[in-house]
């Protein structure tokens, strides 16, 4: 508190112990009580400070003119004892309100007078010994500027000036209350602008002197520590970090670390106007509030995350922001001593505002789909609700992927369709995708192709694999046949198209099996088995077998949980007639739209459509893509078919519908489709597994695919599914041999700087095993304990003191003769146990096995003189994989 009140700019002081009291000081002292608004609403003379709080004026003290600074007595009692520093350097003890405390009465009005009058700039009570009051005064040529008064001392005339020289102004008749002998006098021939006691020791005082900051040690007053600086105003100690001090000069705040006092550890960005107040928040670590002249904002500097002490190299992270508590200019502010981030600001016209600085919100996503945010002292955790009910919202994709990773989703390379089951078996798109891949993939790998495919070796094979779109494009030699309904003897007018490619497409759609057999019956049976009655009926119908369709519907109606309405549909079907203008046709084509099942709608659309115009089937969007495509392959001419497939493909790509993979195959088109699927769902897992099965040259190298793969690997790492990630990498390298990871890290020799592996130039980095480092279990190679490049010895293990390169003996200290025995014993462990490990901080290390066993019981480095807490520095060392089963 070093403001002068001559300019009538009010300052504000909060009671150190009574959290509802504060004092406004300008030309007089006014004591206020702050309360919540509800309890004081009715009373008169209440000043509203905010929506919730109001202040009541309790007392005014105008006994002390020429006030320059005020400091509140730091002890609980007497309650409202204030020290007032005056323009003439006198310090007066005064009080506000009524106090019946005898100590207070005794102290009231007591004056402390310096030898030479000059302005008192600052006052500071000693927090440990509350009898000590430090006053900082302006310069006098012969006098001291820092005076420490003992408020309990009695006036002793003989101690100071000879009586004949005392010419005190006659006003001081009551000399009994005047003290002229300070306990300590410091800073001769200097000026003191600001003061604060250091919490480190009761006898340490930090003072902002003329052009330097000084630390006075009262245990030895002839000594002081000082640093030349301009920033000498408003010295204040961080209440949370006692070595951190802030001071200012004009518009600039300097932050000091008392342990490194030579220069400020930090200077905050300079303000255009001079600062008037700088104060650490007492309720929040590392938050500094600053105020400049003629400003309506308080600037806040959050140093919470700035390392302490702030190193030379590191760029300190300080978050700077401004808050505006009120419209008018702010004359001064005071932090509330206990309510978090709360302050009262006072404007030059004495208007007061109660204000709470809203804490920044910091937010963190967990790798497992929960969200956490912190605000002030509150921590909020937002986790996905785990309700058993089916109606619950679909769980987050991260949760799904996590569960799928645990069920080894994507890893079934033999029965590819089973991956759909591993994924949970409830996603129709995934079902379509994995069935498609199941049908496609046998064509991809030559050794899996079935007998009839032999002639299709070569280019056909890649065509298959690139999706129906490309297959139908390459179609040639299409033949037409007029077909009639299976139970009809009339020549039908339904035109069906045939070609090798169309049969292949039907096969990929799953309608007909492999081999020469083109019968749709097995497919119908499998649909019946799964209870997809409507779909089976539709497929039968599309194959012009109306009797079979009716049979299926009857079966569906009579099955368990069967829908009796299917019988009604069967009835309707049985009335089918070719007659163009029949009532049946008319009714069916209008009423079919009321059917709920898309397959039944499509069936009636087919039956009632004109030949060659099948839009009712082809654009029935809820009919599976594979069925629509199969249908199109049967009933559309080459031009129609190709146009339809193109249109459908684009639709699928745009929607990111995985059913479209049937059309695109694992091609560039497929990647485009998958891209919109990933954009829509974020499911990089499916994307990675699916695209890995594509051609390595074209698809897997696509940067988007690589990105999905890397993201999926990172996800697995983030979930600590390290084993799953390793499995994925193995899976990946099987499908894409080029993806084998390069050795990114190698151990280099201390002397020559070359890798200590053998002939690294001769061998590619890829696939280099650690045995080449000469640290494998082989006893012959283990003799190599020197760098192959320069033949200098390798460093020694800090525990067994053997040169690296020697194998680990399982019990350190045993002789060399035991080595072979030990190695054979735990050969499996030996490989990793022999690896080099070291702490990145202290550079000490040794055999991995030794280090592991050492750090199981210790956190400190095994090297005797080293105090490095290696284990605590290793953030991943304390984690365990969460996918171990």
């Amino acid at each position: 508190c070093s403001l002068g009140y001559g300019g009538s700019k009010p300052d504000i002081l909060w009671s150190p112990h009574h959290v509802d009291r504060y004092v406004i000081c300008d030309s007089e002292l006014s004591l206020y009580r702050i309360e919540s608004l509800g309890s004081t609403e009715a009373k008169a003379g209440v000043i509203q400070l905010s929506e919730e709080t109001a202040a009541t004026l309790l007392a005014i003290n105008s006994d002390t003119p020429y006030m320059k600074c005020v400091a509140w007595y730091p002890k609980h009692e007497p309650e409202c004892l204030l020290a007032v520093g005056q323009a003439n350097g006198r310090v007066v003890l005064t009080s506000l309100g009524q106090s019946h405390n005898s100590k207070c009465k005794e102290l009231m009005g007591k004056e402390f007078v310096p030898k030479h009058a000059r302005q008192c700039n600052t006052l500071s009570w000693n927090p440990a010994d509350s009898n000590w009051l430090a006053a900082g005064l302006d310069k006098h040529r012969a006098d001291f500027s820092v005076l420490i008064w003992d408020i309990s001392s009695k006036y002793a005339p003989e101690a100071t000036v000879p009586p004949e020289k005392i010419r005190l102004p006659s006003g001081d008749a009551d000399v009994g209350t005047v003290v002229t002998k300070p306990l300590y006098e410091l800073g001769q021939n200097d000026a003191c602008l600001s003061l604060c006691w250091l919490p480190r020791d009761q006898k340490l005082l930090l003072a902002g002197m003329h052009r330097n900051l000084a630390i006075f040690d009262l245990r030895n007053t002839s000594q002081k520590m000082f640093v030349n600086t301009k920033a000498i105003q408003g010295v204040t100690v961080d209440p949370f970090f006692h070595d951190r001090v802030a001071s200012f000069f004009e518009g600039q705040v300097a932050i000091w670390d008392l342990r490194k006092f030579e220069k400020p550890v930090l200077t905050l960005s300079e303000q255009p106007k001079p600062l008037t107040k700088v104060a650490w928040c007492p309720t929040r670590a590392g938050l500094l509030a600053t105020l400049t002249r003629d400003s309506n904002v308080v600037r806040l500097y959050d140093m919470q995350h700035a390392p302490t002490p702030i190193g030379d190299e590191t760029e300190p992270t300080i978050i700077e922001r401004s808050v505006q508590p009120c419209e008018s200019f702010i004359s001064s502010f005071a932090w509330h001593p206990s309510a978090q981030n709360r302050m009262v600001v006072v404007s030059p016209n004495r208007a007061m505002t109660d204000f709470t600085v809203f804490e920044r919100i910091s937010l963190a996503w967990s790798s497992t789909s929960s969200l956490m945010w912190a605000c002030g002292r509150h921590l909020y955790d937002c986790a996905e609700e785990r309700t058993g009910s089916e109606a619950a919202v679909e769980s987050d994709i991260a949760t799904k992927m996590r569960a799928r990773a645990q069920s080894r989703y994507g890893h079934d390379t033999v029965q590819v369709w089973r991956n759909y089951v591993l994924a949970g078996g409830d996603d129709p798109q995934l079902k379509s995708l994995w069935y498609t891949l199941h049908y496609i993939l046998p064509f991809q790998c030559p050794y899996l192709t079935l007998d009839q495919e032999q002639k299709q070796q070569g280019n056909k094979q890649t065509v298959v694999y690139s999706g129906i779109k490309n297959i139908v494009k390459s179609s040639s030699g299409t033949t037409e046949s007029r077909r009639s309904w299976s139970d009809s003897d009339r020549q039908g007018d339904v035109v069906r198209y045939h070609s090798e490619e169309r049969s292949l497409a039907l096969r990929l759609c799953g309608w007909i099996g492999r081999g020469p057999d083109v019968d749709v019956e097995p497919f119908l049976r499998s649909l019946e088995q799964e209870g997809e009655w409507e779909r089976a009926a539709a497929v039968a119908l599309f194959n012009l077998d109306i009797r079979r369709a009716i049979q299926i519907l009857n079966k569906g109606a009579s099955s368990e949980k069967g829908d009796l309405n299917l019988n009604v549909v069967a009835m309707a079907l049985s009335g089918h007639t070719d007659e163009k203008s029949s009532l049946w046709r008319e009714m069916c084509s209008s009423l079919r739209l009321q059917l709920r099942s898309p397959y039944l709608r499509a069936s009636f659309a087919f039956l009632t459509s004109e030949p060659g115009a099948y839009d009712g089937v082809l654009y029935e969007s809820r009919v599976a893509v594979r069925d629509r495509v199969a249908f199109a392959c049967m009933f559309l001419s080459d031009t129609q078919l190709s146009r339809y497939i193109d249109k459908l493909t684009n639709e699928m790509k745009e929607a990111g519908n995985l059913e479209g993979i049937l059309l695109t195959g694992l091609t560039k088109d497929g990647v485009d489709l998958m891209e919109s699927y990933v954009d829509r769902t974020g499911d990089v897992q499916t994307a990675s597994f699916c695209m890995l099965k594509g051609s390595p040259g074209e698809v897997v190298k696509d940067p988007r695919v690589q990105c999905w793969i890397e993201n999926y690997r990172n996800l697995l790492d983030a979930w600590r599914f390290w084993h799953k990630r390793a499995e994925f990498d193995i899976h990946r390298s099987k499908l894409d041999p080029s993806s084998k990871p390069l050795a990114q890290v190698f151990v280099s020799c201390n002397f020559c700087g070359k890798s200590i592996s053998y002939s690294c130039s001769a061998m590619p980095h890829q696939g280099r095993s650690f045995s080449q480092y000469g640290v494998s279990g082989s006893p012959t190679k283990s003799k190599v304990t020197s760098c192959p490049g320069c033949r200098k010895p390798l460093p020694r293990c800090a525990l067994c003191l053997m040169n690296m390169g020697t194998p680990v003996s399982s019990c350190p200290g045993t002789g060399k003769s035991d080595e072979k025995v030990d190695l054979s014993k735990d050969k499996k462990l030996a490989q990793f146990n022999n690896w080099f490990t070291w702490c990145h901080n202290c550079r000490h290390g040794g055999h991995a096995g030794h280090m592991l066993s050492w750090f199981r019981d210790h956190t400190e480095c095994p090297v005797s003189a080293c105090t490095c807490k290696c284990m605590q520095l290793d953030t991943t060392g304390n984690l365990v994989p969460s996918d171990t089963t």
Partner: protein
Amino acid sequence: MDLHILEHRLKVTSIAKQGLFVFTHPLIKLIFLRSRTRCKFLSLTETPEDFTLVLDEEGFKELPCSEYLQVEDSMWLALNVVSNGHASSSSQAVGVTKIAKSVIAPLAEQHVSVFMLSTYQTDFILVREKDLSVVIDTLQEEFNIYREVGGECVPVPSQDVHNGFQKNGKEATKATVHPVLSPLNKFCVMSLDPDTLPTIATTLIDVLFYSSSCKDASHSSQDLDCVKFFSFSLIDGYISLVMDTEAQRQFPADLLFTSSSGELWRMVRIGGQPLGFDECGIVAQISQPLANSDISAYYISTFSFDHALVPEEDIDSVIDMLQEQRQMKLEV
């Protein structure tokens, strides 16, 4: 001990008494309207001869050209001794006395002319800018020397003594011993809260500008043994006032700061003829014997004469000492 070379670049001027009216406006601006000027160093001393005005370049710009204004050609720099808490507190004497041996005497030996200005707050030793290298060289053994640049103290690197700079070392001419005069009026040295300066403005204007008019002839004849002396300085925001008890009575008692003991001072005026600016060793002549006897003193140089203030109880012994010294010199 630290020696600070301050940033102020100063001019020493003299305003003739009859020409004061030309300067009242700039002076009132410099003294009372601090926010309107960038002047940071102002000292105005009235003596029977003239008004001595010492001020920095910014302040100097405010002064009009006039036949009544005499300006010393050189640019002057202010030095300030900062004890930094290491001072031996054994000696109670302060001011010029304290620095007599460490600063004044060595500079006199090197023939550096000094202009002293004591205030309530401190003592300024003004030296010519051209003498600075000699000053630094002379004092660097005794002091850590800092130069204030932009408000920061920058250590001055120690100079190589044998670097062949221009020494002022003429053959040590025998120092002239000047007559001393001790008027009877008692002085006090005081300060003032700058915020209350407006409160005493009328009194101050009265004392500064109308001092001669209010005195009748009989009064002045009665005051033959008294000397008109009033000094006001406003340096870096600090106010210092030196006035006799007569003048003090015109000010409200509770606003001016002084020592709690209310000590009073007597003046020793040095010089029968105007001293000029080139003679060296004048301050040393006075301060040496004071230092020997451990007597505190203020010292205020003006355009024509030097003035030392000593505690009233010590005035007789000081005069005796100085007379004795003069006698000895004359005999030699």
